[in-house]
């Protein structure tokens, strides 16, 4: 029972079966997933892979107690056991007084253009491999270039059925790939990678993957250690998105807000960042890899303004957390996998650009650090950031001097948001994830010199 059609029927069966055991509410999440991958090693093909990622997850509620079970095994016995396990766990688990109800939502889910591309499903492995070989060719920009990576096409169909009447189905295709390039000249090593992902084959920039990975690796040759100093930091769009998104994801998710571990507790309507920062979240961005017509509980979300002129506008919620923070359900439930309990998470963020050109941001920098695909990450829930510079360059008088070896930037997530000095007018849009170049005021840079 692993065909796409069967899995909807299976979800309906699970809900009925759970109720028949005595459950108050039941939710079934079934996923049909297939993935074909090609692994690249030393510039040629190493491995072809074709696997199923199908599975199912069940949530059962009994007297406000919640039990969950999941399986990848679709035999009748395994499915029966799965329902039984979820019910047994709900029966023995202490009640959660904060649990209100599974959601109900009868809003029609929108059609998102470009989410499903038959060309990806029809792409045979030989055609896919030809694209990959072209990408490898682009990366071969130096006689010593060592090229490795992985490319994947995927197709997933998701079904969410619950006992309150939610019954949703969505299908999505994907194509993604990355190449890592290493160039060694004696003891001097330049190393970089680049990736792209899309929901439609025509939007997949396979040549850019090879080209950018190769060019960046070459630029990383000649890296040097630097002195410890307090310096301004200029982030490229990948670094900007990779820095801003996780901070916001933790900072405004209603579960963390309720638990008082969110960075921005009790801050709706307050300034949490430089007034230059404006962020929207668009669940329906056409062709977005993280776009979705409904969340992982089946609730239809809407486009949200999250930060306007540095002021926090709202938190993101799901059915469990919305009542806890006194907001409506924004439809942001997200599961790491079919086995996980949903948690609020953003979809596709767009960071509004500024008015300065990116070239001016660089040329006006007296002394600072330029970061390429090197986000400033914090550890876990901690607001402290102590982030290694993976692809970074020392800049003096607007000129890039050399790549940086072995250095760490220390600051806090609050510093990052408050110290936004400027944003470029140019942005990069990666399947809806849109960000400009971002200049941060001085941060502490620990060097190895």
């Amino acid at each position, binding site marked *: 029972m692993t065909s796409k059609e069967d899995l909807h029927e299976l979800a309906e069966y699970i809900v009925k079966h759970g109720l028949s055991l005595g459950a108050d509410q039941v939710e079934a999440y079934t996923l049909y997933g297939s993935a074909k991958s090609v692994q690249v*090693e*030393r*510039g040629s*093909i*190493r491995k*072809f*892979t*074709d*696997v*199923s990622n*199908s*599975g199912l997850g069940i949530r059962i509620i009994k007297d406000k*107690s*919640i039990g*969950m*079970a*999941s*399986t*990848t*095994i679709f035999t009748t016995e*395994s499915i029966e*056991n799965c329902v039984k396990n979820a019910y047994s*766990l709900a029966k023995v*688990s202490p009640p*959660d007084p*904060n649990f209100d109800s599974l959601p109900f939502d009868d809003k029609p889910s929108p059609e998102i253009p470009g989410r499903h591309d038959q060309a990806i499903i029809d792409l045979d*492995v030989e055609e896919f*491999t030809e694209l990959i070989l072209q990408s490898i060719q682009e990366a071969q920009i130096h006689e010593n270039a*060592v090229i*490795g990576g992985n490319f994947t096409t995927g197709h997933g169909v998701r079904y969410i059925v619950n006992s309150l009447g939610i019954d949703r189905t969505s299908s999505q295709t994907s194509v993604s790939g990355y190449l*890592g390039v*290493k160039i060694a000249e004696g003891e001097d*090593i*330049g*190393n970089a990678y680049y990736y792209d992902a899309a929901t439609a084959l025509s939007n997949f920039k396979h040549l850019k993957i090879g080209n950018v990975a190769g060019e960046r690796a070459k630029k990383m040759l000649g890296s040097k250690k630097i002195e*410890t100093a*307090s310096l301004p930091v200029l982030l490229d769009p990948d670094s900007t998105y990779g820095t801003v998104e996780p901070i916001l994801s933790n900072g405004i998710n209603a579960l963390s807000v309720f*638990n008082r571990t969110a*960075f921005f507790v009790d801050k709706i309507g307050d300034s949490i960042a430089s007034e230059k920062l404006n962020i929207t979240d668009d669940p329906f961005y056409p062709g977005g890899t993280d776009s979705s017509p409904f969340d992982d509980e089946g609730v239809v979300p809407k486009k949200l303004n999250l930060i306007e002129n540095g002021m926090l506008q709202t938190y993101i919620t799901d059915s469990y957390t919305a009542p806890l923070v006194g907001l409506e359900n924004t439809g942001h439930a997200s599961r790491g996998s079919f*086995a996980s*309990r949903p948690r609020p998470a953003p979809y596709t963020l767009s960071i509004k650009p500024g008015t300065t050109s990116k070239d001016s941001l660089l040329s006006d920098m007296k002394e600072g650090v330029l970061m390429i695909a090197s986000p400033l990450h914090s*550890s*876990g*829930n*901690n*607001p*402290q950031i*102590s*982030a*290694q510079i993976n692809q970074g360059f020392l800049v003096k008088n607007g000129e890039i001097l050399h790549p940086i070896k*072995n*250095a*760490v930037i*220390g600051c806090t997530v*609050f510093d990052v948001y408050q110290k936004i000095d400027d944003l470029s007018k140019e942005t990069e849009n990666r399947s809806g994830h849109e960000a400009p170049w971002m200049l941060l005021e001085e941060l*502490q840079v*620990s*060097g*190895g*010199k």
Partner: protein
Amino acid sequence: MLDILENVINSVTLTPKDFLDIRYAYAMGESLTVRNGRFDSISNQTTGGVAIRALIDNAWGFTTIVNTDKESILKAANKAIKMAKAGSKYTKQERTIGDKWVYEGSGATKLEIDPRDIDKETKFEKIVKTEQTAREYSDTIAEASATYQESHSKEFVVNNRGTKVSNKTHTIRLMKNVVGREGTKMQNVFDSIGGVGGWELIENWNPEEEGLKSAVLVEKLLLAREPPSGKMNVIMDPSLTGVFIHEAFGHACEADGIIAKNSILEGKIDQRVGVEGINVYDDPTIPQLRGTFEYDSEGTKARKRVLVEDGILKEYFHTLETATTLGMEPNGSGRAMNFNVTPQARMGNSYVDDGDMKLEEIAEMAKDGVYLKDSYGGYVVPAKGQFYFTCQLGYYIENGEITDMMGNVGMSGMTLEVLQNTFAIGEKWDAAFQGTCGKGGQWVPVTGGGPNLGVSDLVVGGTKQ
């Protein structure tokens, strides 16, 4: 099941040079989490299926199915063979698997107390009291959580060289995480116990003591000094030494990375990589640790690996393929997270061996710097030999004395420098880092450890100017 898999192997047409293995993997796990007084997640997970891997004319084909009847597995085996053949025209490297390594046997974790025989209330009690004690300690505790996990798995591997192995593994783990908050200042303390085995590994966890210990530490950390920045002398505690040797060195010893020309340690066997007196091992046969196993996911018998002996690099982590390619012996390092992925060269229980120095003596040698404790994890870019790892807390070392506490911080270093920059090795190693290692999208349990270790010139990324 082994017989069905063997039957399929015997039913497909292969040349002597071709390689085919079939692996059935099944796992059942239970996870219970309590957070801020509420049951956050109570779940049961089952995964299972058959993985078929073929190496033909230098290319791999890999596919998986969830059905376990002979006909379905045979069909999938032929699909893997077809995929490998299709890939062979695109590959430029030679790949084979030697025919001299054949393993037969069965392994099973020693289980003194089967956690499946323990009632749920007893399991709940361990986590509820831990979480409650921490949460109720003071108003500055923003969040307390505790998680109980158990897993029971079996893996059967056969290949056309004659290997026929079965393995049963049981793991158990208790974790706690406590977050303290004063305004925008936050600190958290994470700790865990457990390993490969049964209830006996966590039986002595005293929930009240454990909850209290974390809460008290979090409170102290909120008042601790800001961590320094710059290049300095660092003393690592056994947990930090464990993650340090895992990230800085262990990953660079993985032979698939060596073959992919993606490791700074390529071609360095029998060369000096560390100071005299430093020894680094990885031993998956040590009982009850997180990275303990008897056979790997290719069916190879696991054994202790001598990575560094007296400062000289001696061995890499091998799969069957990497051992064949490099003309070395396999050492049972081919680990796969589940049935849906292929084995990779991985670590098990990595550690720096004992030296003879006391902590106070090492601090005296360091004179000024930091003494860092309790790992959060880290990562490495083996191609350029640059690694990064973080700690939960530390202490300043001033004039040879360990002084004030400081908050969490990250560090960076270069693989080929750090073992050469080791200036002191402590007297007793401890398997203190209970981690989960990620590589190529696969997560496997590992342990890291060592004694206190003094290293010069690490870059510490604090905020203090």
